[in-house]
Structure formats: structure tokens, C-alpha cells
């Protein structure tokens, strides 16, 4: 018989004196209760945005992408800005569930389920942009390599745009599998508590007949670990490949080797900000303050200040290289089109700097990291800043190309470009509202797994072990120590 022990110095991850049954009750309650008025209002707003987005796409297909304000030099505009923005947001879920699992960060259990769901919905939104940007969307399947009657004419495997197709679709599939395999035991919990017939049937189908057998758990653990191991390089590869879309070109401002790490850090940065925005609302609305604690919020704010600063270093490195390379095109792009506040798009560069680099520095202060209002406000600011970053990269590099005669047009989006973007917000929040209503937003089994190590009441009971000499403890490692309980009775 073994007792896991965690240092008293660490904050509890679960507050209150909870039993396993309390954990089930707390997390399943919102699923079994009628949704609140607030939920309905939010859901209808999301659906309304989605409908507007669908109409914008309908116009896009009917009239072609000429209804957008893309012009001779700016071929990517809002569309690809939004694509990169959503993909970036879609990085936090897998980072939390995979990389933090490998690093054995216990606090991931409170937020991983919602973050993974958010990842999946964000990637769904991201996928819309390149697909509808094709214009003749009924030809979208041409991006897949398949034997065809045109030669067969294959796709170009040396092109980063094709790598993107593989990277994003693989990322979506693997995230979905990871998320759903983790959900199975929790859906079974909902099934076994279900009172109504319909609920029993639907959760019965969704939980695949999960029983909780020891052998199944053993395989489940192995599956989660390997999927985490696979997702870790995968999540890094996805935004690396997105950055290759830019970095392998010869456009000034894009043609740089720091893009992959810079994009990945930016993706984690914006992804964590989105998790913060959502979790602060979820924990409040569903009363889950005991599970998503200030400790969780603080940990995520630390990630935000770290990645925000990495992004800041990348911006400064780019500026330095723009001067140091003595390449006049690079110099023009960085020092005129971007860093000069009075150039046509200078406002976007400085907006980006203010949101991404300067304002997150507030999180060096513990008091600010643990302030809900500041955290929520900053999480929105960071996502605005990260949108500006992609806008800056795309528009300021393209609006003055090598041919000054095509410089005249100032690019601003049409209502249908904006509508498409708003529509993806609708898609994202419609999915998220449905998820929050019908699925356990916190991983029930994983919370139970860490409850007796990190639960507040259990930690208090283990206080006496602080006095036990080190030799008594068996083997140590991974932040936990295993100790034979009999030694202290």
C-alpha cells in the first residue's frame, strides 16, 4: 500500500474537502441542470454570428473572392491573417495536454479538457480560411494526392502550402482522437448517473461501453502517454510549417530563419490567452473555482509572460537584422513599413508591440498574475495583439512590392471579409457552448487521480510527513515521493 506525497509548499490543485463522489457531482452538475439564461443568450449570439458568417461565405462562393478587397499586391489580407491567428490559438490545448503531461505538471488536469476542446474548435475555424480562399471551393479536394485522370498530375510535395494541408489535417485528427479518448471514461460517468432514457442512450453510445476495467485503464494510460509523445513534436511542427508558408518565400519581412520558433512561441502565447478568457468565464458560470484555482490562472500567466517575451525578442531581432543585413528591401520593410509609426500601416505594428510585448510585462508581478480582472483583460489584449502580428506580417510586407506603380491602393477589408471572420467566432463559440453544456468541462477521472496527492484536505493530513527523515522515503522522482504508509503508524 502506497501513499503519494507532494510537498506542502505546493499549492493545492483542488480546494475544499472533496471526496471522489463530490468531484463527480461538481463537474457533472452543469450537464444535468437546465442551461441558464446566460447560456441561452450567449449561444444565440454565437449562432447569429455563425449565420452571418455562412451568408458571407455564400456570397464568397456566388460572386467569387472579388467581393473581398484583396488587390494586386495584397493577395492574402484578412483571410490568411485569420487563418494563422486561429491556428495559433489552437496550439494551447495540445500544449497543455501533451507537453505538460510529459513534464508532469499536475495543474494541467484542471484545464486540459476545455483547452483541448478549444483547440479542436479553433483548428476547425482556421481550416475555413484557406478552403474558402480557394474561390472554387468545389475543387478543394485537388489538394489531396490521389490518382486522377489529369496525368495523373500530382500535388507538389516540395511546397510548404502542401505541407500545411498535411500538418493541419493531421493536427486536427490527432487532437480529436486525443480529446475523445480522454473523454470516454468521463462520458461513462455521465451515462451511469443518467436519469432519463434519452440521456442514458446517447451517453451510452458516446462512451463506447467504457467499463473502467483495470486492463483498459492500463492501455488507456499507455495510449495517452504515446499520444502525448506524438503530439508534442506535432504541435511544434504545425506552426513551424505555417511559418514556412512565409519563410520559404523571398518576400522582405518573411524571408527569415527565426520564423519557426517565433511563430511557435506566438502560438502558445495566444493559445494560453484564449484558454484564460474561456476558463475565467467557465469557472465563474459553473462555479468551478475549486478546480480551476488561482494557482492554475497564475501558472498560465507565467507561460504568457514567458512566451510574450520570446515573441518580443523575436521582434527586436528582426528589426536588428533589418538594419544589420544592409539589405535595402529588408530595411525598408522593417524600418519604414513597420517600425515607422507614420507610415500607412505603422499603427498596426505599434499596436502589436503594445499588446504583445509591453503590456504582458505586468505579469512579472505576482499580484497581477493572481488578479482575475487583469488576467481577463490581458487575455483579450494578447489575442488582439496576436491578430495584429499576423496582419503586420502579411500586409506590411505585401502592400509595397517591387513595382511602385502598384503601391497606390490602401487595403482595408470589406464587410464580407469581416463577416467571414465574425462567422468563425460564431462557429467557435457555438461549438464551445454546446461542449460546455453536454460534455464534462473538466477531466473527472484525472482530477480524481490527483485528488489524494494535491487536494487541499489530503495535503493537510499529510503535513506530519514533512518531519519524516529523507531516508524513510522510498524512491523519489517526478516531484512526487512514494512512501510506505506503515512506517509512520
Amino acid at each position, binding site marked *: 500500500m502506497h501513499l503519494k506525497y507532494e510537498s506542502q509548499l505546493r499549492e493545492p490543485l483542488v480546494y475544499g474537502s472533496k471526496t471522489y463522489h463530490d468531484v463527480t457531482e461538481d463537474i457533472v452538475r452543469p450537464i444535468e441542470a437546465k442551461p441558464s439564461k446566460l447560456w441561452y443568450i450567449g449561444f444565440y449570439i454565437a449562432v447569429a454570428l455563425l449565420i452571418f458568417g455562412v451568408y458571407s461565405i455564400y456570397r464568397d462562393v456566388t460572386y467569387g473572392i472579388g467581393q473581398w478587397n484583396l488587390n494586386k499586391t495584397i493577395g492574402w489580407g484578412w483571410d490568411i491573417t485569420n487563418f494563422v491567428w486561429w491556428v495559433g490559438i489552437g496550439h494551447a490545448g495540445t500544449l497543455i495536454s501533451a507537453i505538460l503531461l510529459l513534464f508532469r505538471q499536475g495543474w494541467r488536469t484542471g484545464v486540459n479538457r476545455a483547452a483541448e476542446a478549444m483547440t479542436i474548435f479553433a483548428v476547425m475555424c482556421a481550416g475555413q480560411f484557406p478552403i474558402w480562399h480557394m474561390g472554387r471551393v468545389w475543387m478543394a479536394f485537388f489538394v489531396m494526392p490521389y490518382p486522377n485522370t489529369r496525368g495523373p498530375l500530382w500535388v507538389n510535395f*516540395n511546397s510548404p502550402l502542401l*505541407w500545411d494541408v498535411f500538418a493541419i489535417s493531421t493536427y486536427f485528427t490527432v487532437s480529436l482522437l486525443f480529446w475523445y479518448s480522454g473523454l470516454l471514461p468521463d462520458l461513462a460517468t455521465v451515462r451511469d448517473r443518467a436519469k432519463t432514457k434519452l440521456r442514458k442512450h446517447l451517453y451510452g453510445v458516446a462512451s*463506447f461501453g467504457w467499463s*473502467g476495467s*483495470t486492463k483498459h485503464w492500463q492501455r488507456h494510460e499507455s495510449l495517452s502517454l504515446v499520444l502525448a509523445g506524438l503530439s508534442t513534436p506535432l504541435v511544434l511542427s504545425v506552426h513551424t510549417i505555417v511559418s514556412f508558408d512565409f519563410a520559404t518565400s523571398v518576400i522582405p519581412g518573411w524571408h527569415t530563419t527565426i520564423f519557426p520558433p517565433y511563430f511557435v512561441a506566438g502560438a502558445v502565447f495566444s493559445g494560453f490567452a484564449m484558454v484564460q478568457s474561456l476558463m475565467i468565464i467557465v469557472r465563474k458560470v459553473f462555479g468551478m473555482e475549486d478546480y480551476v484555482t488561482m494557482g492554475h490562472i497564475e501558472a498560465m500567466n507565467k507561460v504568457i509572460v514567458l512566451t510574450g517575451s520570446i515573441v518580443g525578442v523575436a521582434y527586436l531581432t528582426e528589426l536588428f537584422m533589418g538594419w544589420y543585413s544592409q539589405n535595402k528591401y529588408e530595411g525598408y520593410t522593417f524600418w519604414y513599413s513597420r517600425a515607422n509609426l507614420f507610415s500607412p500601416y505603422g499603427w498596426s505594428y505599434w499596436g502589436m508591440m503594445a499588446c504583445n510585448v509591453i503590456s504582458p510585462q505586468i505579469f512579472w508581478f505576482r499580484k497581477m498574475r493572481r488578479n482575475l480582472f487583469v488576467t481577463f483583460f490581458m487575455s483579450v489584449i494578447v489575442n488582439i495583439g496576436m491578430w495584429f502580428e499576423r496582419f503586420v506580417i502579411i500586409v506590411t510586407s505585401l502592400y509595397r512590392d517591387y513595382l511602385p506603380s502598384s503601391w497606390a491602393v490602401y487595403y482595408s477589408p470589406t464587410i464580407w471579409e469581416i463577416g467571414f471572420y465574425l462567422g468563425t467566432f460564431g462557429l467557435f463559440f457555438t461549438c464551445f457552448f454546446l461542449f460546455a453544456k453536454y460534455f464534462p468541462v473538466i477531466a473527472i477521472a484525472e482530477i480524481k487521480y490527483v485528488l489524494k496527492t494535491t487536494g487541499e484536505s489530503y495535503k493537510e493530513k499529510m503535513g506530519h510527513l514533512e518531519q519524516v527523515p529523507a531516508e524513510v522515503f522510498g524512491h523519489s522522482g517526478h516531484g512526487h515521493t512514494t512512501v510506505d504508509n506503515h512506517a509512520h503508524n
Partner: protein
Amino acid sequence: MAKKTFVVGCFDDEEVLFPAIKKVRTAGYKIQDVYTPFPVHGLDHALGMRETSLHTAGFIYGITGTTTALSCISWILTSDWPLNIGGKPHFALPAWIPIMFELTVLFSAVGMVLTFCYLCQLAPFVKKHHFHARATDDLFVMPIECTSKTNIDDLQAFLKNAGAVEVNVQVAEDGWWLGRYDKDEMPFENKIVAA
């Protein structure tokens, strides 16, 4: 598959469960399985299970993905439709690494999840007999398979002694069948028993 008789012991604390398993196994009873609401570390070893080889399967699927990507791309770009891209070599291995990597991960993940579902017999519309509804909530449920020689009353008392909070006897099918969780009927039940 036929129905079997089980004596089911339910425990509410994993620290009671482990010594109980030891006692039950020493006494020579056959534990069918232990159903737990979350993964309990060391339970698989306590029950004498071997390690799963699911990760080996994952490795093999991964290698299959890498090979698929490499062989398809190299055949397409060097022999089926060689494209002259600025006079660069047709066999451009570095440019293929991203897709080779993605397919490795894709094959491995999809293959492992399917294998996991197959091994654990998990699928939509699959139904199983669950010994206790709280096995997915807060109980650790240990059904013990009875043979013709088992004294059921003795075994029940034995489990109570070992710390079970609830003990009962169930006659149940231990496989799976296609069914709905809101209905009790078991299709093919009679046929299976007759066979």
C-alpha cells in the same frame, strides 16, 4: 459466451483495495477484473497483469506511416511525374521531411486508437454488463468468478472481512453485445446460452 456467476465486492478506498486484492489472490479466488473510476497506479501489477504492448503497436504504425510517405513521394516525384523545379534534384529528401513526419504521427495515432478500441472492445452501440453504476463514480468494484466448487456464502463473508463496503452476487454475461443503455433486453441472449 454464457452467463457466469460472480461475487462482487465493492471498496470505497484504494488503500483498502490493495490489501484486499492480496488476500483474495492468496486465497486462490479468480478475480475477473477490478473496475475503477480512475487509473489506480500499481493496480495492474497487483492483479498480476502483464504490461500492455500497445506502444509497440504504435511504433509499428508510425514506421508504416514514414515508409508510406517516403515511398509514395519518391515514386511520384522521381519516376511517375518528375517536376523540374529550378533544376534541383528530383529526389529532394529534406523537403519531404515535413510530410513524412506528419504521416508518421497520423498513422501512429489513428492506428493506436483503433487498436485500443479493438483490444478493449469499445465502440459506439457496444453494451456491457456493468457490475456497479458507481464504478465510474467513487467505487472500486471487484467481481470474483465463481466455479462449481466456490462456496458463495464463504466468499461473501471473506470479502466483507477484507473491507468491502458492499457485497452481492450477480449472474451476468461478461462479454459485450450490441445494445442500448436505456433498454434492458439482450439481443441473441437465448441463442448464446443454447450454444
